[in-house]
C-alpha cells in the first residue's frame, strides 16, 4: 500500500487526449513526515504513522511536541497510520506525492459534508409519496409505514428514519490519478472527493 494525507483544494475540469471533458478534484497531498514507525516486535503490528499540516506550537501539547521532535519535525495537525506500506520508510522521513504515479487508481477517504437533520427522502433516497390523489395531502416526502401492527407491536431496530445526515467517514474508491505536480505537491484525481474544500483527506492505493 501507498498512502498520503492531503487537503482538498477544489474542483475543476481538464480535457483528455480524445477531447473528453473530465471533472477532477485538486488535492494538495503532502509532504507528510513519518512521525512514528510501528513494528511487530514493539507494537504487535506493522505500520507507519504520517503527519501533515502545520500547527502552531502554542496549540500543541507538550506530549505531542515531544512526539514530533523525535521525528525532527514541526508540530502537525493531522496524524494517520498506514499499514502494509509498500516501501520501507524510516522515522522522520518525508513522504511526498510521488508515491503515486499518473494513470493509477487510488482511494480517497474524507468526512462528507454535514447536512443537518434531514428527512428520509434525502437521507435514504426514499421516493416519497408521488400521488396527489388517493387521499394524499400534505405528505409528499413522508416515510410511509414503519412496520406491522399487533405483531411485532414495536418498531424494528435500525428502521431508516429522519435524522442527522452527512458528516460521516466516506471512502471513494478507484479514482484515476489524472495529473501530479510534485513541485507544488498537487494531486489531481478524476471525479469528486468527500467533504468541503480545505478539508483533510487520506489518499491511498491498495496494490
Amino acid at each position, binding site marked *: 500500500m501507498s498512502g498520503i494525507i492531503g487537503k482538498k*483544494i*477544489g474542483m*475543476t*475540469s*481538464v*480535457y483528455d487526449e480524445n*477531447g473528453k*471533458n473530465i471533472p*477532477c478534484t*485538486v488535492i*494538495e497531498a503532502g509532504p507528510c513526515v513519518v512521525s512514528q514507525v510501528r513494528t511487530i516486535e514493539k507494537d504487535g503490528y506493522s505500520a507507519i504513522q504520517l503527519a501533515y499540516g502545520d500547527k502552531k506550537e502554542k496549540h500543541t501539547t507538550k506530549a505531542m511536541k515531544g512526539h514530533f521532535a523525535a521525528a525532527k519535525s514541526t508540530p502537525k495537525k493531522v496524524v494517520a497510520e498506514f499499514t502494509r506500506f509498500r516501501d520501507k520508510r524510516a522515522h522522520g522521513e518525508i513522504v511526498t506525492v510521488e508515491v503515486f504515479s499518473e494513470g493509477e487508481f487510488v482511494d480517497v477517504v474524507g468526512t462528507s459534508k454535514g447536512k443537518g437533520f434531514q428527512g428520509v427522502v434525502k437521507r435514504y433516497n426514499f421516493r416519497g409519496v408521488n400521488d396527489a390523489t388517493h387521499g394524499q395531502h400534505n405528505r409528499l416526502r413522508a416515510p410511509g409505514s414503519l412496520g406491522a401492527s399487533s405483531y411485532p407491536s414495536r418498531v424494528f431496530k435500525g428502521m431508516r428514519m429522519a435524522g442527522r445526515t452527512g458528516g460521516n467517514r466516506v471512502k471513494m474508491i478507484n479514482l484515476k490519478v489524472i*495529473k501530479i*505536480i510534485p513541485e*507544488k505537491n*498537487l494531486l*489531481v484525481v478524476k471525479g469528486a472527493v468527500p467533504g468541503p*474544500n*480545505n478539508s483533510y483527506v487520506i489518499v491511498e492505493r491498495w496494490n
Partner: protein
Amino acid sequence: MSKQELIQLIEDGIEVKEFPQFKAGDTITVTYKIKEGNKERLQKFQGVVLQRAGSGPTATFTVRKISGNVGVERIFPIASPFIEEIVVNKVGVVRRARIFYFRNLRGKKARIREKRR
C-alpha cells in the same frame, strides 16, 4: 500559495481558442466536430445564446434552437477542442444576462430585438 492559484495551475494547461465576443440574446452559429466511428465531420448548431456560465477555461455557454417544433439546447464548454468556429449572426438586445424566460416563448413572441449598428 492560495487555493485559486493552485487550481489555476491545473487549468493553465487548457487551451482556449479565440472566439468573437457574444452574450445572452445573441444568435450564433457553432461549428463543431463530431466523430462517427473513425470519420470526423463538421456540424453546425445555430441558435440563441441563453447564458454564459462559469469563468476561465471551464466556462460554458448554452445555445437554444427550435428544431422541427421541438426546442433543443446544447451546452458547450468554451475550451472544448471540438469547437471549430463560432460566428455571431445577430447581436440581440436583452435586459438580463440569462434569458431563461425565452424558453417559454413561442412563435412571434420568441423574437429578440436586434441591436442597431
